[in-house]
């Protein structure tokens, strides 16, 4: 299963970025093989608005079925839900640690956004 983790850097040792829409990198991890690739989300860092929606679109394009991040606002959450991507929030540590926590089932799928827009 493909999972996207929001990240401050390009590899598995980078810290998880707690922001979703304005995270600089998305690490796309295959939980079966452990293979990963980094996808840039840079275009959204300075977007005046709608960063969460565009970021959700970016995640959908990777083919991932789950997103692991710190926080997620309402517009991003709605877009991810429509794209049938489950959202796992409250993650921290490195990307590798977040993936392990996800695999163990430590992170629960969220039913709704946990922060306001423009958080």
């Amino acid at each position, binding site marked *: 299963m493909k999972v996207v983790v929001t990240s401050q850097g390009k590899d598995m040792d980078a810290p998880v970025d707690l922001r979703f829409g304005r995270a600089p990198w998305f690490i796309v991890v295959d939980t079966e093989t452990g293979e990963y690739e980094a996808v840039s989300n840079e275009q959204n860092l300075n977007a*005046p608005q*709608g960063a969460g929606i565009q970021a959700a*679109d970016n995640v959908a394009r990777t083919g991932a079925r789950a997103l692991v991040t710190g926080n997620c606002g309402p*517009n991003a959450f709605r*877009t991810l839900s429509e794209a049938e991507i489950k959202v796992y929030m409250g993650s921290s540590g490195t990307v590798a640690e977040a993936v392990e926590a996800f695999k163990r089932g430590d992170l629960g799928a969220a039913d709704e956004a946990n922060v306001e827009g423009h958080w």
Partner: protein
Amino acid sequence: MRIAIASGKGGTGKTTVAVNLALVASKEGRSVQLLDCDVEEPNSHLFLHPELETSRRVFLPVPTVDKSLCTACGECGKICAYSAIVVVKDKVLTFPELCHGCGGCKRVCPEEAIRETGREMGVVECGRADGIAFAHGKLRVSEVMPVPLIRAVKGSADDVDLHLFDAPPGTSCPVIETIRGSSYVLLVTEPTPFGLWDLGLALDMAKKLGVPHGIVVNRHMDGNESARRLASERGVEILAEIPDDRRVAEAYSRGEAAVDAVPGTRDVFTRLLQRLLELGRAGEQTEKGAAKP
């Protein structure tokens, strides 16, 4: 002549300048209209006490998608600069509160699946006070985008000799929209570190927009040369200095205009108006001259 009154910092006296200029101009028998473009917090009416005659609701066109026609091609999402419409997983989603109403999505949709419906921005109210034509906008509570309503207020300009556009504070989109098309911008400041810092930003903005501009110093105190220093450094004229006078503040707190309540103030605004009209005439002549081959 179209004069915008802006400031950078809030609370420096834009409305005071706009209202008192309007009163002085009207007293001189000029046809004048005050348009309060601070649609988030309009307050000119508190001092002019206009009789409001018309009220018009203003709408912004936002997309509604007929899902039976949509093929989820994604063209609408590609053209939208504000992520107000997006296609994910063969589904089109709209976020009307993010839409700026450009109509791009409707235009590029190959299936003609998009029609425009109105999102209410607020109201424009027009009226008169002491021979002064008046218009202002009131942004709908919880609406985040003031610019379309400011455009509607400006669209209510009557056929008069002098238009005064009272701008919101700051140097961002709402202010730029207010100033656009003006023949002159008055930048109102107060001689405090905050006031002068923001005046610096406002001067940069006016310069970038290429609109002729000058400064009005409010709450001027003898011995405080800071505003004059900045004006001379930047090569910008100070058109008026309104003396710091407690009676002006007291009149303000009662909703009275300074020219009516405080003796001597009328002269300051009469001279300011004269100077503005001179600059306006000079500007028109330069324009005419430049238009000749």
